[in-house]
């Protein structure tokens, strides 16, 4: 049925597609869109390293503001309609699977869990949950007594949240139960699946509010993008383009506005001159190292690759890595705890159908009473695919053999609730360089992570609450997951003081005025919601701020 053009280049993982003045159009089978190209020896206004939620969004905003922009992406430029299979194993092609070492008391799991390597970054395989921060979190040190204050005002952020929600046509409830009033979501909420109704019943049994999850997947057509067909493979990549990833939204807009995106382009080092200004980036593409000159460099590689690149760019003037005058680059790595409670229902649930988290509650994000810990958590309905589910059973319960197979046979009756829980910033949780090298010859990252007592108290509270709620609706064989995490933030935090932060509110590094960091790394705290909407809102704000600074001659 597919009408593939004969001039389709080969494997996206082998041959760059963003070349020869054109780029793949992900919305048309075999389609191309024209793309401007910039010479390497002339400085572009901005080179952006990474094209995910931070870099992809910023590339769009800057290109639309009239700047010359080159986006560098280590991963491939996929065509979802033709190249995404309904298969967990095959879709590993979307993940950052280069080696990283994990240690600490609670070593992290990366790869499929939280790290993308593709044009569009992790948004190509994220779960699409698009939530706003609770307003108080932007001043959680002053107002709630923990973590660090952000140098941003929540009212301004809420305007940028709105901009992103419109840009992604977020499907959400007509009215949102928590926080200050917000405008209606651009698209209506999706039909809730049985797994989502389990959460609804559980919340009603506990007397707390629930709602449909605001999701970056279409509940109605949008241009050439199809509405969701509820195939349930969201977290291994959406083959219908219902998911409003950066690949489908910001990147085509950026290219249309004159940005160049270079796929299969791995940046290994940022060059800085004697005057202390960045001059461009060294990157590897098609087997050789190249250099792109730039007036500004933006690092948007997410909370592991961003500090790794800053470390790998160390020179005699900055032996501890670029932008690291505070010594905080790589520190305060924050995940979100992602523990779950599972049970077996009498009803058939078939949780593989539809987006995995169609309902949620933010009750424990907005309620402070009755907590013996700082921070909050949301919890959401679940729908893991077979491999992920087997892995959850095996890692947490140590099941194998006939016991495991008996448990797996209950797959269609299984339901679960899972938190996105806040963790506190700790300097001991950090990204450093290891001795091992990757395929580009660059030192790989070592990721050290341990939960603190507060994090554990939050997890315990959530597990007790969710277990009670599943019990209240008649689930049986209830058990709790001990160990899981999601998302990566905080290794280049923003702030008002160069001594205690890496970048300012505009994501500009304190040490090198034309070096910017624009991704989840800049979060001083993480809150209890998925970070993608906030990353994109910050990128939109940064784009606007750069335009204003340029107009005033302050770049």
């Amino acid at each position, binding site marked *: 049925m*597919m009408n593939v053009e004969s001039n389709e280049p080969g494997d996206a993982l082998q041959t760059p597609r963003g070349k020869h003045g054109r780029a793949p159009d992900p919305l048309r089978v075999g389609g191309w869109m024209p793309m401007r190209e910039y010479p390497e020896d002339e400085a572009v206004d901005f080179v952006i390293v990474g094209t995910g939620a931070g870099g992809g969004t910023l590339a769009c905003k800057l290109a639309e503001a009239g700047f010359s922009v080159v986006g560098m992406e280590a991963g491939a430029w996929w065509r979802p309609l*033709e190249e*995404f*299979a*309904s*298969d*967990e*194993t*095959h879709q*590993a092609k979307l993940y*950052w*699977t*280069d*080696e*990283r*070492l*994990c*240690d600490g008391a609670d*070593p*992290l*799991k*990366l*790869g499929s869990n939280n*790290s993308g390597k593709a044009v569009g970054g992790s948004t190509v395989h994220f779960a699409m949950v698009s939530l706003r921060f609770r307003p108080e979190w932007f001043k959680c040190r002053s107002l709630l007594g923990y973590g660090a204050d952000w140098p941003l005002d929540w009212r301004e952020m809420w305007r940028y949240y709105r901009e992103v929600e419109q840009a992604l046509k977020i499907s959400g409830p007509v009215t949102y139960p928590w926080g200050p009033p917000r405008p209606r979501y651009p698209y209506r909420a999706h039909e*809730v*699946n*049985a797994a989502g*109704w389990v959460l609804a019943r559980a919340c009603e049994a506990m007397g707390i509010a629930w709602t449909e999850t605001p999701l970056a997947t279409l509940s109605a057509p949008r241009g050439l993008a199809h509405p969701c*067909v*509820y*195939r*349930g*493979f969201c977290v291994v990549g959406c*083959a*219908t383009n219902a998911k409003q990833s950066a690949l489908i939204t910001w990147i085509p807009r950026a290219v249309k506005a004159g940005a160049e995106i270079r796929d299969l382009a791995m940046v290994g080092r940022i060059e800085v001159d004697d005057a202390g200004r960045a001059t461009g980036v060294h990157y590897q593409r098609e087997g050789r190292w190249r250099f792109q000159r730039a007036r500004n460099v933006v690092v948007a590689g997410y909370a592991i690759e961003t500090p790794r690149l800053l470390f790998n760019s160390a020179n005699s003037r900055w032996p501890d890595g670029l932008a690291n005058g505070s010594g905080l680059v790589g520190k305060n790595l924050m995940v979100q705890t992602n523990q779950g409670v599972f049970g077996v229902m009498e*009803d*058939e*649930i*078939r949780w*593989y*159908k*539809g987006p995995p988290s169609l309902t949620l509650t933010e009750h424990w994000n907005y309620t402070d009473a009755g907590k013996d810990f700082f921070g909050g958590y949301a919890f959401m309905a679940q729908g893991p695919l*077979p*491999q992920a*589910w*087997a892995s959850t059973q*095996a*890692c947490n319960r*140590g099941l*194998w*053999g006939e016991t*495991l*197979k*008996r448990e*797996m*046979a209950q*797959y*269609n009756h299984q339901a679960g609730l899972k938190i996105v829980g806040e963790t506190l910033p700790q300097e001991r949780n950090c990204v450093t360089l290891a001795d091992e090298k990757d395929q580009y010859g660059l030192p790989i990252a*070592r*990721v050290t992570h341990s939960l603190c007592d507060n994090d554990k108290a939050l997890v315990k509270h959530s597990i007790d609450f969710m277990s009670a709620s599943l019990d209240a609706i008649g689930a049986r064989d209830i058990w709790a997951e001990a160990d899981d995490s999601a998302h990566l933030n905080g290794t280049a935090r923003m702030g008002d003081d160069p001594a205690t932060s890496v970048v300012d509110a505009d994501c500009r590094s304190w040490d090198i005025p034309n070096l910017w960091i624009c991704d989840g790394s800049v979060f001083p705290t993480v809150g209890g919601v998925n970070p993608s909407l906030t990353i994109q809102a910050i990128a939109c704000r940064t784009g606007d701020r750069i335009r204003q600074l340029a107009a005033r001659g302050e770049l």
Partner: protein
Amino acid sequence: MPERFPGYDVMARRDTASWNDATRKAIDARLATRDSPEFFNPEEWRTLDAICERIVPQASGRMRVPTAALVDRKLAEDRRDGYRDARLPPLREAWRRGLAALEAAAQVRAGAKFHALTASAQDTLLRDMQHGRLDGEAWGDMPAELFFKERVMHDILAAYYSHPESWNEIGFGGPAGPRGYVRMYFNRRDPWEAAEAKPGRADKARKTNQHAGSLEQKVLTRMNADDRG
């Protein structure tokens, strides 16, 4: 254990709107995996195969999943996960060392090869590995329990549950796209999903599962014929 989804076969939908070309290509390649090693040597292969049979035992009368071969291909291609507990060596080395250490333990305990042990003796060894009760020089600095969790369990389960036969066992809908699902509420089944056998009504489920597949195939054969014409 009686079959929960009698007669259900994910592959019956291979040629329907539930699969796209990319999926067909990926699954066809997996199903064509030859049940012999490309990475492991014959001795390692026998050990691995025996481990797989204990971790995910296979029912007779169903298509056999070449679990060990699927694990072997991961190593042959050195497909890593993007993270590694710092206490473990890289993927290939971890497996080589772990299998050798298990064989060493089998030798010490029973004076025999692991694959030649009884199922219950194999289980005892595996359980000891799981709980860190195996030691010996062969492990080096690699903790046995970590090897069990991060390699044995992780890689073997990922291999087994990547195979359509495993999806049949658990009633998973399998590949879905372009066609996804319509009926989302409790106890609602789309006609192209697995029917579950209720106690004493296995025949009804079998009939539903076989009928759903064959009707779909008939319609498709006609549609494909139309397409060609």
